[in-house]
């Protein structure tokens, strides 16, 4: 059993779409989970549908949504205070040092983050790389395991089959509850799924198909 799991993603909602089922499973086992959320998604373009946010109110709205989602997933939240879309321009070593300080305090046995260069959004790639570097800076015998999540369309071609594939369909209600806490974002993301195919079929069924499995690569140091 894991001792403590630390999840490191840059945006409010990355945790819910990407790893909520895995987080819920750990919490069921009584494993503490802490989310280090990089930014408040200040530059998101989904303003709700119909719109209820604007560029200036979005950060506070997303912060509230994030706190709610963390309540649903029953995990501790630490907000890192970076700004959306800027993580790749921050000094990599500084971000890694910042993360290392927090990781050394928590002493997790497992870290979940994005797979650098295979995570689509520049913030995902940059924070994933910083997290992996942070762990590298920790003494070998104290290093937690790192699960890196790749989300490019070609990640299986590029990296092979993921090492960890969690079937989270049993925890799917919790995952959907967490996703729907992100009210400003969830509608926009879910709607983007049916741009190509007419998605009249059950939303939950479609969500289950897309989000029912959460997969990770074990980072090799």
């Amino acid at each position, binding site marked *: 059993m894991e001792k403590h799991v630390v999840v490191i993603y840059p945006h409010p909602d990355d945790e819910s779409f990407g790893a909520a089922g895995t987080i819920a499973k750990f919490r069921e086992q009584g494993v503490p989970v802490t989310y280090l959320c990089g930014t408040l998604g200040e530059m998101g373009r989904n303003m709700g549908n119909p719109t209820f946010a604007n*560029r200036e109110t979005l950060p506070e709205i997303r912060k509230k949504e994030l706190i709610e989602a963390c309540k649903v997933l029953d995990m501790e939240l630490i907000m890192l205070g970076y700004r959306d879309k800027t993580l790749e321009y921050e000094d990599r070593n500084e971000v890694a040092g910042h993360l290392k300080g927090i990781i050394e305090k928590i002493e997790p046995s497992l870290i979940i983050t994005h797979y650098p260069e295979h995570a689509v959004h520049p913030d995902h790639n940059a924070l994933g790389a910083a997290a992996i570097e942070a762990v590298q800076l920790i003494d070998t015998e104290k290093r937690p395991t790192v699960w890196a999540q790749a989300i490019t369309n070609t990640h299986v071609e590029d990296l092979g089959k993921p090492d960890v594939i969690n079937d989270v369909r049993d925890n799917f209600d919790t995952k959907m509850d967490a996703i729907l806490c992100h009210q400003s974002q969830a509608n926009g993301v879910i709607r983007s799924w049916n741009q190509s195919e007419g998605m009249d079929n059950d939303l939950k069924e479609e969500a289950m198909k897309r989000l029912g499995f959460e997969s990770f690569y074990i980072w090799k140091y």
Partner: protein
Amino acid sequence: MKPIDLDKVQEKLESFTDKDVYVHLETTNGAYASHVNAKAYNVGVYIRNAKVRFNQAKIVGDGKSYRAGLKMEIGWIYAEGLTDWEMFEGEKLLMAGHDREGRLMVALQISETPFNY
């Protein structure tokens, strides 16, 4: 935000002329454009808290979508596709263009005090 009212927005724009003001100007088609559609391109730009001074300002449009142009001593600021507006915290003029899913496509915001950063 609410649909742009040309006369009201024009009046607000003029209230910022010949003053040092802070501008937020942005356009985006999202960080996932080419991820969800291989034929699309990711394009975006933003500038936040540029300190500028303009001496003329005008908003033009057809009742649905509007363009705004701000004339500075040695240049221009321009935004197309604006649909909605509001006065934020009483003194910041926010204008934005949203698509039918409520996603921001373009924003032009003007304030006498800096925007949060």
